[in-house]
């Protein structure tokens, strides 16, 4: 899992930023920019879920619940600031603080949920996290101060390409560095064999709660960026099905591979948009009863096929290497 040190990540991000800026000059329209932004938000969500599901191996199905906490908390803060003085440019520091506040709130929820539930394993944990994700959503659906079932409207559009890219970069860098540290090795040990990890003295519950909290923190940031991109936080945006979408990204990319999650987040976000518009135009061209709503059917099929024929995903647990370092022989 070794990848060359930090500069490469920065180079790739800078290259992507420059490429998009250049493309903007030659007709890269707002729709394409929106897809790029959405992909980056999904990068944050998928990579943070990969920390929980892939690196420490705890199967969580409620990731969007944490994103919802981040979205509602940061959205409420910025909406308030925006109402007080509607000068967008002056609010960016406040926006970043609001995002972090949303992330911290999500992390606190993650810890609160993690303590009782992380003793559970495998499929039980999946059901409980699913349940909590839905409960968080139901709670927001019932709080009238944040719009209830109407959703939190009028969130300022603060999520620009540069901001989202910066946060995606931070997310990937932090989680990759953790994965490669001694803590990360302990987490991988827990994934591979929890009993053995416990026996060699690794604090398994402590690590699980920490990983859960950190994953929830970044999910909260991702949710905040998402809300400030779409300018709305609505309970239906954070349903179970969206948690599954992020899960598909993690598994399609290769559970345990951060590179895989990044690639899959881009590929599947673009694929979703292509399928939606492609199927709709197919319907209008041929009159076949196959509309844009079929894309979820194809999505589900994709998940089943990945599991049946390539369980380890696109990348397995490998990471992309930009520089091949010859392995030294052990002597």
């Amino acid at each position, binding site marked *: 899992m070794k990848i060359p040190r930090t500069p490469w990540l920065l180079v790739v991000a800078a290259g992507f930023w420059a490429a998009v800026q250049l493309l903007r000059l030659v007709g890269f329209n707002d729709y394409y920019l929106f897809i790029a932004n959405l992909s980056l938000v999904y990068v944050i969500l998928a990579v943070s879920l990969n920390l929980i599901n892939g690196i420490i191996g705890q199967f969580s199905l409620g990731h969007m619940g944490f994103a919802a906490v981040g979205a509602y908390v940061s959205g409420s803060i910025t909406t308030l600031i925006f109402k007080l003085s509607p000068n967008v440019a002056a609010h960016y520091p406040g926006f970043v603080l609001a995002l972090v506040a949303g992330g911290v709130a999500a992390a606190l929820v993650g810890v609160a949920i993690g303590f009782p539930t992380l003793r559970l394993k495998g499929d039980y944990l999946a059901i409980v996290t699913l349940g909590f994700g839905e409960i968080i959503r139901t709670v927001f659906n019932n709080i009238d101060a944040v719009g209830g079932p109407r959703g939190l409207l009028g969130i300022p559009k603060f999520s620009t390409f540069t901001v989202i890219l910066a946060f995606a970069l931070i997310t990937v860098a932090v989680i990759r560095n953790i994965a490669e540290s001694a803590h990360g090795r302990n987490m991988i040990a827990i994934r591979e064999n929890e009993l053995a990890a416990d026996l060699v003295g690794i604090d398994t519950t402590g690590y699980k709660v920490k990983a859960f909290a950190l994953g929830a923190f970044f999910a909260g940031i991702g949710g905040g960026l998402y809300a400030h991109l779409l300018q709305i936080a609505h309970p239906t945006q954070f349903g179970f099905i969206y948690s599954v979408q992020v899960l598909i990204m993690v598994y399609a990319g290769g559970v345990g591979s951060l590179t895989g999650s990044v690639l899959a987040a881009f590929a599947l976000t673009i694929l979703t948009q292509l399928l939606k518009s492609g199927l709709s135009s197919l319907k209008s061209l041929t009159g076949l009863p196959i509309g844009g709503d079929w894309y*979820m059917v194809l999505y589900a099929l994709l998940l089943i096929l990945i599991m049946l024929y390539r369980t380890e995903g696109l990348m397995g647990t490998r990471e992309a290497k930009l520089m091949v370092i010859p392995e030294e022989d052990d002597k």
Partner: protein
Amino acid sequence: MGSIFNLQQVVNGLQLGSIYALIALGYTMVYGIVRLINFAHGDFYMIGAYTAYGAFFLFNAVLGGSGLPMAAVALVLAMLASGLVALLTNRLAYRPLRYKPKLSSLITAIGVSMLIEYLFSALPFIGPSFRAFPEILPSVPIKLGQNATISTHALIDIGVAAVLMIGLTILVRHTTLGKAMRAVSQDKDAAKLMGIDVEKVIAWTFMIGGAFAGAAGLLAGMTYPRIFPFMGILPGLKAFIAAVLGGIGNIPGAVLGAYIMGVAETFATAYNSLLGEGIAFAILIVVLLVRPRGILGEKHADKI
């Protein structure tokens, strides 16, 4: 005693519990045999409701069927359709993954569940919107003491569930297939060595479980007459939790858990609707922390 703790709520709870029990039985049988939480099980319930809906329209329009014979035909068709879909699901999606890591099967099950739900909501003749379930049998309230009534629907729900459960008990205890099912759930490899066709037993288990969920779908359609492609998700989860509460893999446990769940949910909802939605998960967490093997489950240690 507050006004919400009354006989009427107990009746409503038992009625809901009967539907949960039929779903929970499939969960617990499948889990007992292949150790898989079949996420798609709630969708078999949905398929049962839609099959009954379709059957009613077909037979009522063509043959003018109605009343009790119509309900019986709808019940048989719903059970058949759900059972066949369950059989097909097992053959196509779960069987190839039988000896792979457990999590792959679980994720596949989520995929199957999504596939069925979105396929139903994308199909032009079904669609994503709510449909009103036709009134196959009229609901007549029968007085129970001073301030409670029991509807004929509730009697049908409880009665059908009881008959099916008795049938299942006979099947599991007194037939060769039942004996094979018990053997496979105890030790798959030993059962294979004794000459039991394990895959065949698993297929039968899926089919019976699916058929029970289909029956629950018809009953739910009649009782709460509003159906839609995603109707199976929540009852499926709650029935699973009921199965865990009773001790997963244990057939009487699933029934017990389902009735406890039904009554608990009815009371909680009467108190506060948000609590009603959350009570199932609260029960799950308490059970898993306090008594993970469930009320009637047997104790077993993790092998090292």
